């Protein structure tokens, strides 16, 4: 068998995907009301273009992009705007949001089938991506249009679809690849067309052999598209790691994938791109994995953007007995929620419920014993040990000598640390107190 593509470093947390792996994607109950944040992406927040009391249809634009690095937001239900105010999001920040009461009619604003989408020009396709408000659905929520508009001096020759889904527990992308494999391949073809590229890869971690098979099957007639099995290792799905694993190119520090002529998109994003190009369907729903040992019935739900997490938890039968921690996203990089009344956004890939006994209490940690585990596994080749000791003792500036700002906070170091040091937290502290 061929050696699997991979990168240097990385960790092997228990993948725990069995919990939700076999649950087919199910349409979630339409919620009574949705809270749609106007800032679901990296970049400028949207400006609301509806007013309180206004009736909106499903898929209608309710927020216009506030800049180039931005993406419009659409209503995910049909109904009446009842409030425009600040609401907390999953990161605990207050974000200007539009609250819509669902009238249950599910009336679409505009959906038009366009089977000849592949014949459209690059600019026309881009326009569709822009109108649909698509952002990266792997978690970072970077506006897709920006990635698809590289400056002229940076030619792109490769598009990679990220189906690694290296975060433990999460199975949203896996289910999508199983159930919508041909749509995803179509999405990739559209992306390649937009960028004028004739090499496409789909990278999938090897713990999902059926997904690899499915995708290979779907791409059978596409000579330009290759499905790559990747070694099962966290963070295989991080952009730079994925590029290194598949193409062998290393993105230099503080550079972007486009600097090595690559664009990476999540498989979910590819699906959204396909649906936008084909039906003109905006990004108003996404697959969310509801999982963890603390939830009664784990599931992969197709959830409308803006649905409150409490509604989803309820639909999944609630907590088993005592939920210790609820995380939005995966266990490695997700955010612990302080309240369940926060909405699902375009970047929410999972809701993880960790029972009380499974919570790692990080208050008590020991000194760094310099075992070097974190250095061995750091995918960025940094020295997390020093990056945690220096801020701990107040030497924030010195941390920059250890390439503080190259860290993308994957959490691998904190995972392996035998002294249970809050390395990521200390690194964030240092980042917030210094300038790059």
């Amino acid at each position: 068998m061929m050696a699997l593509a991979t990168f240097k470093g990385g960790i092997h947390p228990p993948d725990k995907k069995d919990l939700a792996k076999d649950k087919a994607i199910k349409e979630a109950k339409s919620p009574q009301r949705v809270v749609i944040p106007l800032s679901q992406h990296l970049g400028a927040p949207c400006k609301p273009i509806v007013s309180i009391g206004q009736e909106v249809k499903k898929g209608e634009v309710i927020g216009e992009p506030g800049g180039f690095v931005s993406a419009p937001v659409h209503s995910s239900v049909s109904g009446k705007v009842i409030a425009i105010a600040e609401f907390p999001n999953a990161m605990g920040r207050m974000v200007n949001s539009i609250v819509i009461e669902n009238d249950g009619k599910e009336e679409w604003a505009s959906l038009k089938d366009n089977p000849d989408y592949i014949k459209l020009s690059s600019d026309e396709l881009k326009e569709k991506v822009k109108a649909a408000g698509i952002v990266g659905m792997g978690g970072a929520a970077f506006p897709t249009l920006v990635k698809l508009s590289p400056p002229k001096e940076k030619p792109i020759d490769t598009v990679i679809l990220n189906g690694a889904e290296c975060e433990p527990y999460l199975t949203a992308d896996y289910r999508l690849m199983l159930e919508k494999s041909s749509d995803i391949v179509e999405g990739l073809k559209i992306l390649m067309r937009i960028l004028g590229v004739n090499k496409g890869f789909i990278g999938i971690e090897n713990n999902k052999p059926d997904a690899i098979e499915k995708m290979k099957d779907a791409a059978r007639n596409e000579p330009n598209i290759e499905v790559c099995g990747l070694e099962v290792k966290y963070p295989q799905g991080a952009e730079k790691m994925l590029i290194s694993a598949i193409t062998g190119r290393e993105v230099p520090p503080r550079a972007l994938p486009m600097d090595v002529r690559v664009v990476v998109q999540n498989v979910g994003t590819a699906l959204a791109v396909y649906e936008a190009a084909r039906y003109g369907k905006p990004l108003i729903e996404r697959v969310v994995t509801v999982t963890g040992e603390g939830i009664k019935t784990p599931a992969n739900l197709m959830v409308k953007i803006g649905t409150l997490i409490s509604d989803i938890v309820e639909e999944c039968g609630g907590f088993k007995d005592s939920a210790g921690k609820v995380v939005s996203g995966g266990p490695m990089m997700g955010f612990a929620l302080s309240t369940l009344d926060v909405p699902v956004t375009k970047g929410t890939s999972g809701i993880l419920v960790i029972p009380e006994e499974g919570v790692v209490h990080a208050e008590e940690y020991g000194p760094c014993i310099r075992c070097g585990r974190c250095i061995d596994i750091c995918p960025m080749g940094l020295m997390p040990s020093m990056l945690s000791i220096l801020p701990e003792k107040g030497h924030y500036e010195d941390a920059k000598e250890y390439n503080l700002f190259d860290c993308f906070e994957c959490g691998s170091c904190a995972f392996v640390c035998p002294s249970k040091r809050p390395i990521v937290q200390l690194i964030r502290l240092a980042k917030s107190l210094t300038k790059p």
Partner: protein
Amino acid sequence: MEFGKLFELFIAAALINNFVFTRYLGLCIFFGVTKKMDTSIGMSITFTSVMVISAALNRVIYKFIMIPLGLGFLEIVIFIGVVAGFVQAADTIMKKVSPGLYYKLGIYLALITTNCIILAVPLLNVSEGYNFIESMFFGFGSGIGFSLAMIIMASIREKLEIADVPKAFQGLPISFIITGLIALVFLGFSGLITL
């Protein structure tokens, strides 16, 4: 003078009879400048060069001026005068010739006059009866040994910056203890060369 002997003299001065760890000299500077790696490196370069030159200079003066005139008993006054004069001259010349270098190393020159090593080298040269070449090698070895000590110490103290040293021991006390530990460890070199 065969080369092997000179090499042994050098090794002995640098490692076995290291000024800091076995002769306890230059401690004030040693503890003073090793707080930072940059200053230690600057000091090392300045020190080693001044040491070699002053060893040679004093050797010449001792042999051709002091001995003939019977001024041996004034060695302290004369040596310190020579060193001070030389350092002053070096300071002036460097300022003129290479301002960049002066900017980097000049501040260390000022510190050198009050250092016992710089005086100890000519005094030991006299008492050990080294000839001109030997004196220079002895000066060079001592300089390298001192530099080595300073650089090791600076790297250790940098590491200690982020250590939980008990409050009463922070700063000099722990530095003394480190020096003691290094001195203990350097005993491993003893017996390496028997002069």
